């Protein structure tokens, strides 16, 4: 089994739902660890940046642990595959306006903005929503007919359409559900909480990258 030789690293920045992601990756049979250690991240075949939490607290914690520099080296220079989940995807942007203005990692040009529905809808956008695929993406290669995933967010990623691989409709808006740029992927939904569709996405991300 080649699975057993694939090493996945989940970034530990004190906030975030590392356990659920760890659990899903373990379920798929990969070697996985939760870490913020440079040597360990360097040895990993793919890196996952999870996220539950507020943008400001997360980015401060990342900078405090020096993870911004480590990720820039491993992901931008060495081209290691990276998957950002929810807040982890938003952290890839240049900036966020969640509770003030904050700088992000800037890996995918874009900014994070508050969802302001046009039609009647509540915020946060929470629940299972269908994706509209707008661009081929290897992370979706194992999906079947159903394309719904679990979302839970109040802010969304705004960027050029060339980076967007899928959108979702909510409150009269079309929000970026996933973004990608070279070896960097971000999903606004929670694959670790999207039952089988989520497991299919993790499998595709790891096998195809």
């Amino acid at each position, binding site marked *: 089994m080649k699975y057993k030789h694939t090493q996945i690293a989940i970034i530990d920045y004190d*906030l975030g739902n590392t*356990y659920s992601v760890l659990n899903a990756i373990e379920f798929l049979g990969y070697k996985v660890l939760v870490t913020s250690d440079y040597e360990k991240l360097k040895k990993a075949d793919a890196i996952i940046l999870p996220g539950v939490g507020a943008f400001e607290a997360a980015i401060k914690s990342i900078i405090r642990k020096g993870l911004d520099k480590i990720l820039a080296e491993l992901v931008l220079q060495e081209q290691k595959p990276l998957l950002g989940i929810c807040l982890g995807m938003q952290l890839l942007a240049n900036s966020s306006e969640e509770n003030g203005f904050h700088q992000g990692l800037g890996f995918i040009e874009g900014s994070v903005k508050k969802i302001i529905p046009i039609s009647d809808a509540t915020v946060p956008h929470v*629940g299972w929503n269908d994706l509209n695929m707008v661009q081929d993406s290897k992370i979706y290669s194992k999906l079947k007919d159903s394309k719904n995933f*679990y979302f*839970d967010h109040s802010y969304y990623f705004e960027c050029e359409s060339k980076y967007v691989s899928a959108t979702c409709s909510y409150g009269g808006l079309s929000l970026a559900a996933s973004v990608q740029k070279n070896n960097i992927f971000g999903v606004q939904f929670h694959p670790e*909480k999207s*039952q089988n569709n989520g497991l299919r996405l993790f*499998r595709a991300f790891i096998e195809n990258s």
Partner: protein
Amino acid sequence: MLKRRIIAVLTVKDDIVVQSIGFQKYLPIGKPEIAVEFLNKWGIDEIAYNDISATAKGKKPNFELIKKVAKKCFVPLAVGGGISSLDDVRKLTQSGADKVIVNNLLLQNPSAVKSIAENFGNQCLVASLDIKKDVDTYKPYHYLTQKYLPYTLQEWISQIETLGAGELLINSVDRDGSYQGFDIEALKVIQNFTSIPIIALGGAKNAHSFIELFKQTQVDAGAAGNFFHFTEHSVNICKAQINRVQAWVRLETNANYQDNPIDAEGRLLKKEDDILEHLLFVKIEKEII
């Protein structure tokens, strides 16, 4: 389109899932991790784990037990009971909880609630409020003291919103364990008070309770405890019935009960003969993801 959610509530007392009747009587059901394993397989949309003995006894949440539960849970897991600080929330999210449910803390320590939202985001914070009808108005009620709070429902909800709650879990005390259906009258009032998602809880008897809820209100989710525990495939059979009226919910389990006649009480009836004959030649392969 955003689907409505069906949420299973695990009422946990002394580490055992119980059936709750009117906030007073409790009957044991079984181990939380086993309940979660089945609910997850049957296609539940979300699980709310509510430890009702922790706060009452001044105990912390049982983090080890929550880890065990989270291991079987590939859908969102909200955990409530015994949360008194930011540190508890940190430990819970590290144990696999995606959201925390606060009730008593809203009264005891509003600033702690606010800091949960600031640190973990609004989406992580579910505010639970118990409501009860007093003569002809609905009032917020406190489950520990079994008394009404000194606020109107609208005042209390707007206070909760300013603390940064991302969802409201509305629990009808009058309907708890009553099998009379959701308190639709109350929910219609409440949905006008707030712009954050609402989860309705209390009184669900069968799929018709959810159908009425989704038809008559805009609430995002319906939650139930008791009725999911007592029959095999309770979740997917319930969802199949809901989607016959309108495709409100997600139904993706292999057993989707689309061909089964279901009686008014929600019991499965025998399939038509020609469907059964055809089925003999269908082989469903187990998917290896």
